[in-house]
């Protein structure tokens, strides 16, 4: 008991220290702001990690009740393995992003007070969201999280597009909160209490669907995902990393937390979640392939990964519904493992993409190319991220996808004739999604880093000298993530123990951790690395004393190839996208080549999200249409004003007299 108290004090200190670091840096000169913030938040991170790791690894639950007078009343703050897992991820990833931000923000030459102030709010808000156990306080933290991230998005606010997107983001979040409002209010009506603890057994299907929609908007479920690909390109890269790596998972946390209050989820919900997951994964990665802006593409890929997490969650729920405990266990294992892994490799990708952006000043992959020669470290780190996100061994992405497949295979053994084909088709979709990820990332990696540069401008700094690789201050945090990515892939049997306690909070009987299988994978991955090493060595030996000629690329006899003739991002994905046309809309602006001696022509293609096109746009247009119908009311004529009032009065009088 005493320990719990101490731990919670450390925890609160850490949170206050974060806010304090945001405030403290305001007092310092522009030059020192980043360092001051990094130092204090580093301290806060270390402090926060103490109770978190203890709760997570020793499977303990710390809680503390704080009394807020009036409306909110008593608020429980809980650090159980479920919360602690998320806190751990938030702390580590945020801190790496903060380290990165110092060098990243340097060239912007901007006032940083606001940015760091809101970052100092954003991180504790996320931490509180995953620990607070009271409806109102949860919603407050949730909103502060949305708001502070909104201000963080506004970093480049001179651009109109940035402001529009930020508003779009905040409004979408607002809509999400409204769904949460409805869900929580219905719950509150059922239980009469604001405490999460009272929800046990009160979450009906309707409530869950509302909450799912609310949390799903944050998480980026299809069709609520449209804010995500807009928000990420405009955010500073370390913010994209935190938002994509951590923040959207708070949506998943919400769903998971609600699940702890459900004894056994109904089949409807389970299939719904599975369906959403499959749709998110498929559409997310499909649109990722269609993008040429690499940050947008990474954002879409986040939707896909959220889809995978949701698929796994769907299996976990199906497992509980069908009383297949192993499937449920593996499903939850997949959920947590993938959250962990995605929050490693997605920041890794976003941060290395940020390095590219800060050097080349363009996010359009069609203008890049050949960067691997000027930025070898960034390129290698991006490659590691790409391999990990494509779930390729020996990196960490494979481990979680492996769990998802295992959950699915176990589900098949439930011998339910309805479940069976659904699971098999899910396997098919998952495998297809895997193939698509491969296309998306080979494409993006190649068009940014490989081949020849497509634009001379991108290879020069503003002063005109050729660009170099990023500063160490940026490479080190990315490198740490890359090392984690590899280590988790190589030794999953140890690293995956991180999530086991969190998984067990959902299970009646603790999951038998598949150590044997994981150590097999570990052995295999080591063997893979060794084989690659051996073969490379053999190759080196064979090449000893041989001539290595450097020559131009063979262009099948054509003598004057230039960089424009390379396969670009668009052309690479075209054959594949050819047979998926119904799922997206491509607007082409191309006049064609006419006459014998054609004049200059141009070609422009734009890919539109079908959900944006058929769902979001009509709603906005419809609103506009309806609202414009009423503009005449405020006409400026006093007599009309008076008349409206009198008519209203008359109607009421008639109503009263008639009754």
């Amino acid at each position, binding site marked *: 008991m005493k320990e719990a108290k101490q731990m919670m004090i450390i925890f609160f200190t850490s949170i206050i220290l974060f806010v304090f670091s945001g405030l403290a840096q305001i007092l310092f000169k522009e030059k020192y702001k980043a360092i001051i913030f990094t130092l204090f938040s580093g301290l806060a991170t270390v402090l926060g990690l103490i109770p978190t790791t203890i709760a997570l690894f020793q499977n303990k639950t710390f809680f503390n009740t704080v009394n807020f007078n009036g409306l909110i009343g008593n608020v429980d703050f809980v650090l159980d393995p479920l919360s602690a897992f998320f806190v751990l991820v938030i702390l580590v990833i945020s801190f790496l992003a903060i380290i990165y931000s110092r060098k990243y923000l340097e060239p912007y030459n901007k006032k940083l007070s606001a940015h760091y102030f809101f970052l100092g709010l954003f991180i504790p808000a996320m931490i509180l969201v995953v620990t607070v156990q009271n409806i109102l306080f949860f919603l407050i933290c949730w909103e502060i999280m949305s708001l502070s991230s909104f201000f963080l998005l506004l970093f480049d606010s001179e651009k109109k597009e940035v402001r529009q997107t930020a508003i779009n983001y905040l409004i979408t979040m607002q809509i999400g909160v409204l769904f949460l409002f409805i869900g929580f209010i219905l719950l509150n009506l059922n239980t009469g209490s604001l405490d999460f603890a009272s929800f046990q057994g009160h979450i009906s299907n309707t409530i869950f669907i509302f909450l799912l929609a609310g949390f799903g908007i944050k998480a980026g479920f299809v069709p609520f995902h449209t804010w995500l690909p807009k928000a990420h390109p405009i955010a500073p890269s370390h913010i994209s990393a935190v938002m994509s790596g951590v923040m959207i998972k708070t949506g998943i946390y919400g769903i998971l937390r609600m699940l702890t209050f459900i004894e056994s989820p109904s089949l409807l919900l389970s299939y719904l979640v599975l369906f959403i997951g499959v749709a998110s994964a498929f559409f997310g990665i499909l649109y990722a392939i269609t993008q040429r802006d690499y940050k947008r593409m990474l954002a879409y890929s986040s939707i896909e990964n959220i889809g995978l997490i949701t698929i796994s969650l769907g299996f976990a729920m199906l497992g509980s519904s069908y009383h297949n405990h192993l499937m449920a266990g593996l499903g939850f294992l997949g959920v947590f493992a993938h959250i962990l892994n995605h929050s490693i490799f997605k920041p890794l990708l976003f941060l290395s993409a940020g390095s590219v952006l800060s050097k080349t000043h363009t996010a359009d992959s069609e203008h890049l190319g050949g960067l691997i020669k000027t930025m070898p470290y960034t390129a290698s780190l991006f490659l590691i991220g790409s391999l990990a996100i494509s779930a390729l061994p020996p990196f960490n992405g494979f481990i979680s996808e492996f769990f998802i*497949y295992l959950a*699915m295979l176990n589900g098949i053994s439930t011998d339910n004739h309805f479940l069976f084909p659904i699971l098999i088709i899910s396997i098919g*979709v998952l495998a297809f999604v895997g193939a698509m990820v491969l296309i998306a990332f080979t494409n993006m990696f190649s068009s940014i880093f490989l081949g020849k540069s497509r634009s001379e401008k991108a290879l020069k700094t503003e002063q005109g000298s050729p660009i170099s690789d990023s500063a160490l201050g940026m490479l080190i945090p990315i490198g740490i993530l890359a090392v984690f990515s590899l280590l988790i892939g190589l030794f999953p049997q140890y690293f995956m123990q991180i999530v086991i306690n969190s998984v067990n909070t959902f299970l009646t009987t603790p999951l038998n951790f598949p150590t044997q299988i994981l150590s097999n994978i570990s052995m295999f991955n080591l063997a893979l690395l060794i084989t690659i090493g051996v073969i490379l060595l053999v190759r080196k030996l064979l090449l000893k004393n041989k001539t290595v000629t450097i020559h131009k690329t063979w262009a099948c006899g054509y003598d004057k190839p230039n960089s424009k003739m390379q396969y670009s991002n668009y052309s690479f994905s075209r*054959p594949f996208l050819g047979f998926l046309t119904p799922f997206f809309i491509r607007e082409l602006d191309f006049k064609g080549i006419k006459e014998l001696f054609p004049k200059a022509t141009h070609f422009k293609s734009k890919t539109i999200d079908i959900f944006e096109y058929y769902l979001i746009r009509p709603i906005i247009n419809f609103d506009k249409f309806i609202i414009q119908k009423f503009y005449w009311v405020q006409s400026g004529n006093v007599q009309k004003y008076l008349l409206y009032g009198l008519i209203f009065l008359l109607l009421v009088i008639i109503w009263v007299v008639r009754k």
Partner: protein
Amino acid sequence: MMRFLLLLILPFLFTGLINKTKALVSGRKGASVFQPYFDFIKLLKKGIVISETTSFIFQIAPSINLACMILAGLLLCVFHFEGDFILFAYVLALGKFFTVIGAMDTGSSFEGMGASREVSYTSLVEPAFFIIISSICAIGHVYSFDSLFKILSFNHMTWVLIVILSVVALFLMILVEGSRTPVDDPTTHLELTMIHEVMVLDNSGVDLGFIFYANALKMLIFTTLIASILTPHSLWGYMVVLFIIAVLIGIIESITARLRLTHIIEYTFILITLALMVMALALLTMYETGAKGRKYDYFSNLPCATSPSFSVAKARRLPVAVHLLTSETDTTAKLGKAVFSSYAGVSSGGMI
């Protein structure tokens, strides 16, 4: 283990056999079946030419690809654990990843074209593979290659059908993954129509040798998979299957033209169709065995050995191939016909 060694040794014999068959069918004498070995050794002895556009990716890609193929073979033949086929598929994907970025590294428009086609046309292979394997796994409640091969005997018509459909699907996969006709023509001289060959235009010397080896190995791996399904234990059986498939590929390459590029995707859809048929059959088997509510923990023990309610497990262990020869298989024949006629319909699309 023996199989793994054979797997490492035989790839070039396999391609040699294919080439020999093609030569014989076209009325030539052809090179020796061991010619690919000589080519390989010759390539290893040569120096290399590297494009000035390339980076280290280009140089490590073939080696990594080869390593992936070797380890995939290892998974298939030696190293078994629950879920190994997932790893198998992803290791193959890792190889593909590096082949593709290796090709893109040259900055050549042709190699980009090849890479783009490669990833597009093979995108449906993985789903089909997973659907088939997991369907079979589902009926047998097994999760690894070795136990999968163990349970694949029969006492029922549906089982036979499942095996046949799977084998046909796997055979089609060889053609897709190995870049053989009708998907790709390895002997074409027009770069615009190539898929795999055009990706490696710039590789030379050792790297090219590795690429040849890896590609042959990949085909052989799929062949081994088929062989292991048909004759899981006998080494001679394995050799026979290998021989038959090589000859079959040779014959197909001799008598068909490659497909128009736009039709290749449709061709790969056949794979999905076959896979879904396997799934339907598996569902049928589930109805028949009617085993319901069975609980079991697969981490502790394997069901095919212990579970008494599982009828297939207790069935006679008769190789399916033998069964094929002895029993009346009307349905099978019809089904096979249907599959092949659809395949023929697609192939009549013609050249590019």
